[in-house]
């Protein structure tokens, strides 16, 4: 059996070798929230964990369902579990030392200021357009110093290259094609994961100071 000290050192050593000490430290100290743990959020959280982001705040009120397994990062045996708990299990299998805060709640305009107070970067990964707008408005209104990276327009089988990242303003980034909606066409695993990867990649760039 591998000792925990050895594993902790080995994990960090691998990251330092790739990114250098300074970047590794920045990633480990970063505090990132993932709001919504569906196709976008579950993929984003796994990528951020592999990137070495040290503190993740997972937010979702829902339970894993069979209808999630076609594009969300859950397993058959997790059906019926709360998504925050199911995803936390998976993230700890990747990196047992990731610091996780689990919020099994529905985000509202009212609870948002307290819920997100400790997070530096927020990944918007909700399903409904109204919820996306509520979160983006709330973060920008209450927290001028925080950054929000939202997913917008991921449905259907349109070209993957249309899933793009852009900076709208100082604190707001958008990823997606901006138009395709799940009210008209289904969500597919690959295109959803493309957007999740764009969001996670942007978060890494922001943490490392590459976005200015």
């Amino acid at each position, binding site marked *: 059996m591998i000792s925990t000290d050895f594993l902790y050192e080995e994990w960090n050593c691998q990251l330092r070798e790739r990114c250098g000490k300074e970047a590794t430290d920045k990633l480990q100290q970063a505090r990132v929230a993932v709001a919504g743990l569906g196709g976008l959020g579950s993929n984003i959280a796994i990528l951020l964990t592999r990137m070495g982001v040290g503190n993740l705040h997972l937010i979702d009120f829902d339970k894993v369902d069979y209808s999630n397994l076609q594009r969300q990062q859950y397993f058959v045996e997790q059906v019926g579990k709360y998504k925050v708990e199911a995803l936390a299990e998976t993230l700890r299998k990747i990196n047992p030392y990731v610091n996780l805060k689990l919020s099994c709640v529905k985000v509202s305009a009212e609870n948002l200021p307290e819920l997100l107070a400790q997070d530096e970067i927020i990944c918007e990964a909700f399903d409904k357009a109204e919820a996306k707008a509520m979160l983006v*408005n709330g973060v920008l*209104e209450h927290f001028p110093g925080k950054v929000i990276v939202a*997913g*917008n327009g991921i449905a259907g089988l349109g070209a993957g290259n249309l899933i793009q990242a852009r900076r709208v303003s100082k604190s707001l980034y958008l990823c997606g094609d901006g138009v395709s909606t799940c009210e008209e066409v289904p969500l597919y695993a690959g295109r959803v994961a493309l957007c999740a990867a764009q969001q996670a990649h942007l978060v890494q760039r922001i943490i490392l100071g590459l976005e200015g």
Partner: protein
Amino acid sequence: MKVNGEQIILSEKIPLSEFLQREGYFCDKIAVELNGEIIPRSRYASVFLTDADKLEIVSFVGGG
């Protein structure tokens, strides 16, 4: 006035809420930045647009 990067002519000062309605936006699915500042929904009716303004309107669509 510049709206999402495109120049449009605004002949008179109008409330933001009126502009959004005229252009067909759904207020519960958007975020609006005026000259780089987020405008809370509660202020859409009291904020006036002028021809010198730069407006960014983000429309959200479902899927996550």
